[in-house]
């Protein structure tokens, strides 16, 4: 199905506030998630599996010379949280495909409200979904033996990293879905997230990486976001480790949200 034949409403005519649209879309996304149990499973099962599998398979990685902790869970639980946040954001953005395919999105584009709601709604839904994912994965991590010497600030740092990642992933998913408005966007979205997470310090810190991934991981913004999320698990929370993570979130969000906004323009010429 195509959306191109439908005349869009001129910006000057969109006088209605975007806030109710954003809330309605967020609520709709969350209700859809709750009504489809199969959609909840990847939301929590995948990051939980990654925490268990990575900390189980690679439990002796902590013997590497530059590994910053003896407890491998303190390394992999934040990774699982950030990965879970990425998949929560991706899932929300990808849900838009269904709306496009069923024609619901066409009706939204015809509505007189501001289009900002079409972006803010999925972000709100992503943040709620991610909060749930973060809570479940952290609970699992602590149950398995992860520690948080950074205390409340450490918790705040990982929450900020997870929310940032969710917003980034939502932007990536919406941008791609607006350009590839069908189910084929799914594998591309997943591959994008897998590449980004594997080509970072997800598994091993930079000094212990020996090959071609090291320069990529150094430049990958996710490396800084992971450092932001991990600092409370590895020691005290410091501004020196926090600000690069926040800058990485802000920069990547800006780039991917431009990608999303220009994608919507392509969808509605």
């Amino acid at each position, binding site marked *: 199905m195509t959306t191109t034949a439908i005349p869009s409403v001129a910006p000057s005519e969109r006088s209605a506030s975007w806030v109710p649209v954003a809330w309605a879309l967020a609520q709709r996304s969350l209700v859809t998630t709750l009504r489809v149990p199969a959609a909840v499973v990847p939301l929590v099962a995948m990051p939980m599996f990654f925490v268990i599998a990575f900390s189980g*398979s690679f439990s002796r*990685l902590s013997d590497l010379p530059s590994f910053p902790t003896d407890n491998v869970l303190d390394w992999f639980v934040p990774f699982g949280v950030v990965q879970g946040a990425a998949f929560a954001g991706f899932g929300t953005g990808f849900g838009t495909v269904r709306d496009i395919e069923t024609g619901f999105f066409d009706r939204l584009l015809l509505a007189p409200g501001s289009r900002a709601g079409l972006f803010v709604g999925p972000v709100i839904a992503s943040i709620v979904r991610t909060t749930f994912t973060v809570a479940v994965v952290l609970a699992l991590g602590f149950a398995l033996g992860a520690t948080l010497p950074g205390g409340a600030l450490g918790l705040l740092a990982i929450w900020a990293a997870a929310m940032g990642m969710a917003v980034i992933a939502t932007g990536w998913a919406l941008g791609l879905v607006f350009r590839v408005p069908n189910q084929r966007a799914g594998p591309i979205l997943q591959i994008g997230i897998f590449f980004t997470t594997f080509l970072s310090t997800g598994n091993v810190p930079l000094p212990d990486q*020996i*090959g071609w991934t090291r320069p990529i991981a150094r430049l990958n913004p996710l490396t800084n976001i992971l450092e932001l999320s991990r600092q409370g698990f590895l020691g005290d929370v410091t501004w020196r480790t926090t600000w690069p993570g926040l800058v990485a979130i802000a920069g990547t969000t800006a780039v991917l949200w431009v990608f999303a906004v220009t994608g919507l323009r392509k969808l509605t010429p």
Partner: protein
Amino acid sequence: MTVAVLDPHEVRIGRRQAVAQASALARRSIRGTIRQPQVWLPGLLFPMFIAAVNTSTMGKAVEFLPGFEGVDSLLDFLLPASITQSVLFGGLTAGSDTATDIQTGFFDRLLASPVSRTSILVGRLAGASVTGAFQAVVFMAIYGAFGVRVAAGLPGALLLIVYAMVLALVIGGFAAMLALRTGSAEAVQNVFPLTFIGLFISSAFFPTSSMSGLYRSIATRNPVTWMVDGMRHQVIVGLDWGEAATSIGVAAGLAVLAIYGAQRALRTRLRRAA
């Protein structure tokens, strides 16, 4: 859709004719796979990507961690894992294609024609097995270009190919069983996460001696570990018929179970169709 299904008891096919039919269906299966690069290419590229990333990010592990004795590079260690991963993913395609044949009605047309019922299954599994051999050759060639040598030489390389072929029967058989039971390609693809879990909780990516606790206990009892370790021995240490027999024997045992299950599922579907 209603089709005239020939009664299995009335389908009297000579052995030579059955082999010819199975061969034709196997060729169709292989051609179908070749024509869908979007289906098989990820199965080759994804394991290579994982191996390339792990070799770079965790390459130091071979120097510092237990279980890597005699390993020069993590890529040597990962060759049997990559073949296993690729064949597991690729074997699901065979099952999906069977389900697609059911969904599109091709399966019904086969049942309405004087084709040996066993040939339908054998053809599909033979196609998967040949694809498995191809995958093993591709991995050995590409990893060989990056310095990986099979310590057991040509016999070891042949053993890896045989292993890949038998493993393709295992996953192809289970996938075909699921396809015949459900008739849904989506249901077959839903098995993908399970194969991923089975692969991860094994020695495929890291040795069990570097694991601990319950995870290690499960990994050491996982048949994937028994299969991968036997083949890894050929790559890293050298030719060992005992290790090879364990590896291929476990795969063959699972293949018998899978094919038996698929055969039963086929009979059930035939009964329902008759």
